[in-house]
């Protein structure tokens, strides 16, 4: 998942646990608050654009979806592997092309009907319907599900063309408890794709009833008629929607038919407070139980004897970097790129600009994921070596004409000003900021390759598998995810091999080699792994905080195990 700025929309962290059961306090019936007080109030920041999980893209949408819908799997708390959710287990055929998911037999919808394999087929086809153009559909058609790869060439105005495409997909339900997915290519990471929240089952009968009967596969209005109404959002997750107060809040209550033990939290209310300062005031006046601390208030919270005890610093499985347009001189020269990378003091960046909310990291894969290895120091801070590299290249004068493309947000301007200062101080090169309206950066600059240096750029794990990270820098991603477009000889072949490789040791070895290529050629300049700084009221207990959680909602992957103590 691409990072553009500190916008809320960008975070989806899935990965290693760093803190288990941060509540800690022993759970006894003596300190448990009464059921009517088992209410959790948190800030989700932005209203979901849709409550249909298959049509969602952003983490503020996922926050609601993971409570209302179960995917086949989710990441284990330590993110070492997947653990069962909608499915109990799975088998992979010896050629790696057929995944057979054995569904949870006692799984029920919130209206009490059993969840069947055909619901999964229906949900996944809804996700892959090209007429609906779901935002997060790529991992399902891009070199994965059989028959899905021509997603982009289907005539979405023709119902017969869409039907033919959907019927040709490698999705089947041989019996009510077995969901079979056939792939085009072996994909060792596909179990992780099955943890993505938009790959949810859906109820054909409910959707058709809300639409007023069966409808054409190109009728996008009827296909989504159910998704704005709490009564027709029938899910298979631990909670169900009780109330939708548009743009203000959403209220969730336990799904009485959920397969796991009944949760203690009897109500979760997510508010949509866009301004971090407002949420902070609400937390201080006891109207919210969990918030993300705005950057401007981090120092105040750290210095406050009461608030600092309620604060949690949570690593995310993400990494920031700056991209170089390697299609133009002098940034096509690895020496120049390395000189820029080596003249940034990342410790100072994290402590001064980010108030300590991060980990300086001059390598690619963030801490907490397989493949994390900070030993390669090719991009580490070393002003003397940086100056020498630039002198060797003889392109200092050319470099001084380059500009740093900057999104017009306070956060981004602050960081980029810091970077420009670093280059001025440590390299003696003046690089101007080119500040541009955030909205137009992607379309007018990045997609067209019209920039010299761009930052902050970065990535947040969709799932803790290295494939999700290394695919970014494939040459085929030029001007889409790989904004800098560096084409490293042998990289594409190595990644394609590793993505399909079933031997774990060999796969890890290939990715290690690939990471070295990225760092040593300075495809981008890696900067730091951001951490989240959240406040949680002391009476919210039983949270299992993992890097899978939403950045605003620590522990939200397992809220059904949390509870409120007497206060």
């Amino acid at each position, binding site marked *: 998942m691409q990072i*553009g700025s500190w916008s809320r929309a960008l975070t989806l962290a899935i990965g290693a646990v760093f803190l288990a059961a941060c509540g800690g306090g022993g759970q006894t019936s003596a300190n448990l608050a009464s059921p009517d007080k088992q209410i959790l109030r948190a800030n989700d920041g932005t209203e979901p654009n849709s409550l249909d999980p298959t049509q969602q893209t*952003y983490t503020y949408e996922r926050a609601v979806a993971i409570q209302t819908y179960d995917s086949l799997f989710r990441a284990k708390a330590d993110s070492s592997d997947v653990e069962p959710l909608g499915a109990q287990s799975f088998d992979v055929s010896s050629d790696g092309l057929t995944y057979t998911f054995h569904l949870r037999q006692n799984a029920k919808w919130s209206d009490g009907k059993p969840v069947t394999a055909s619901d999964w087929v229906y949900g996944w086809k809804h996700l892959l319907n090209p007429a609906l153009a779901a935002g997060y559909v790529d991992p399902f058609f891009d070199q994965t599900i059989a028959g899905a790869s021509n997603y982009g060439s289907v005539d979405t105005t023709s119902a017969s063309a869409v039907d033919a495409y959907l019927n040709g997909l490698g999705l089947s339900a041989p019996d009510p408890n077995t969901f079979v997915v056939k792939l085009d290519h072996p994909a060792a990471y596909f179990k992780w794709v099955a943890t993505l929240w938009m790959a949810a089952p859906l109820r054909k009968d409910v959707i058709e009833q809300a639409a007023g009967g069966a409808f054409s596969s190109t009728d996008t209005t009827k296909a989504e008629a159910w998704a704005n109404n709490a009564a027709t959002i029938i899910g298979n997750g631990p909670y169900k929607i009780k109330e939708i107060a548009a743009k203000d809040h959403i209220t969730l209550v336990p799904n009485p038919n959920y397969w796991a033990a009944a949760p203690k939290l009897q109500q979760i209310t997510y508010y949509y407070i866009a301004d971090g300062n407002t949420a902070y005031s609400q937390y201080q006046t006891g109207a919210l139980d969990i918030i993300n601390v705005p950057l401007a208030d981090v120092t105040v919270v750290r210095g406050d004897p009461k608030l600092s005890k309620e604060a949690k610093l949570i690593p995310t499985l993400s990494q920031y970097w700056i991209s170089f347009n390697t299609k133009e001189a002098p940034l096509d020269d690895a020496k120049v790129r390395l000189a820029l990378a080596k003249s940034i003091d990342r410790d100072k960046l994290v402590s001064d600009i980010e108030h300590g909310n991060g980990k300086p990291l001059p390598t690619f894969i963030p801490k907490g994921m397989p493949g994390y290895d900070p030993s390669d120091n090719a991009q580490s801070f070393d002003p003397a070596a940086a100056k020498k590299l630039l002198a060797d290249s003889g392109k200092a004068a050319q470099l001084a004409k380059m500009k740093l493309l900057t999104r017009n947000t306070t956060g981004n301007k602050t960081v980029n000003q810091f970077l420009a200062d670093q280059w001025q101080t440590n390299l003696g090169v003046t690089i101007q900021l080119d500040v541009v309206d955030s909205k137009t950066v992607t379309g007018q600059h990045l997609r067209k390759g019209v920039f010299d240096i761009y930052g902050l750029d970065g990535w947040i794990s969709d799932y803790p598998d290295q494939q999700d990270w290394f695919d970014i820098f494939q040459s085929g991603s030029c001007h889409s995810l790989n904004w800098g477009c560096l084409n490293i000889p042998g990289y594409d072949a190595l990644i394609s091999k590793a993505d399909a490789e079933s031997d774990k040791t060999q796969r890890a070895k290939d990715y290690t080699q690939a990471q070295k290529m990225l760092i040593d050629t300075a495809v981008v300049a890696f900067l730091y792994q951001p951490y989240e700084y959240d406040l949680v009221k002391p009476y919210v207990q039983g949270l299992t905080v993992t890097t899978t959680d939403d950045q605003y909602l620590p522990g939200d992957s397992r809220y059904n195990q949390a509870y409120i103590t007497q206060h």
Partner: protein
Amino acid sequence: MRGALLPSQLRAITSTRSGALAIFIVRRILWMIPILFFVILITFTLMHLAPGSPWDKAGGRQLSDTVINNLNIRYGLNKPVAQQFLLYIWSVVHFDFGLSYQYQNKTVSGLLLESWPYTATIGLLAFLLIIPVGVGLGVLAALRQNTRIDYITMGFATVAASFPNFVIGALMVVVLSVLAYKATGGNFYLPAAGFGIDDSLIMPVVTLALLPIAYTARLTRASTLDTIRQDFVRTAWAKGLPERLVVIRHILKNSLIPVVTTLGPTFAFLVTGSVIVETVFSIPGIGRAFVVAIESRDYPMILGTTVLFSLVIAVANLVVDVAYVFIDPRVRLT
């Protein structure tokens, strides 16, 4: 010329004052149609000239080219712009303002109906605060010109007009919510955010009303001072009329004409929402929705909101013009 085109009965109607007023209102309402057409044309053109597409996000995950292509087809953005415009006009004629790009399967009219009540409630309450407080302070200051009352009132008006409302809003939150909560252990404080028909309205309404109050007070004072010096006021005093009667019947009625002129646009301004007040107090109103729509290039939402705002402003101006007829007998309906 116009009279000649009317049937004789209508000509008879226009000859009476109330008939003329009715014709005036009908004509102004009919004029709104071309006005709205040009508002749509200009907004549509500017919207499409502005760089950035509805599918590019300011930050965060970016959609793939394949998905963007399919979205353009889904929402008809692959068609020529002129055709898109004609299709839009055609649906507006049928009172269909289309589907939002940002909120899936939600109609623009539904979204406007969802958020406008919040904005309208706060705007209306602020307006109801402005008339007595703004006009009252202005008249008071004028009648007691160059006294302490005048200086205090105008000092307040200057301060209120100088502070931007995000500063006032944030200050009020800190003092009346956060600090009050800490000081009283959570017993007495105003909610920092949210909407309800309760004490959560106080801070947003005051924040929103402060600037117009200050403006109205200064305007009323100036216009009242102007009126006080008129001959007819001197005559009223000379006749020995009691102060109450002089002020209400002779001074106020005349000094309020310029104030009424500004109250129309002020009302329109208040009920179309303030993005700052709605953001600071997290009110799910139309002002914030409009800015979010512009930021995300939600074309149908931008157009729908603009049309609604134009209507509100046009109607507010019409009401002011009609109000003139009653306040100022010199006004002629031509």
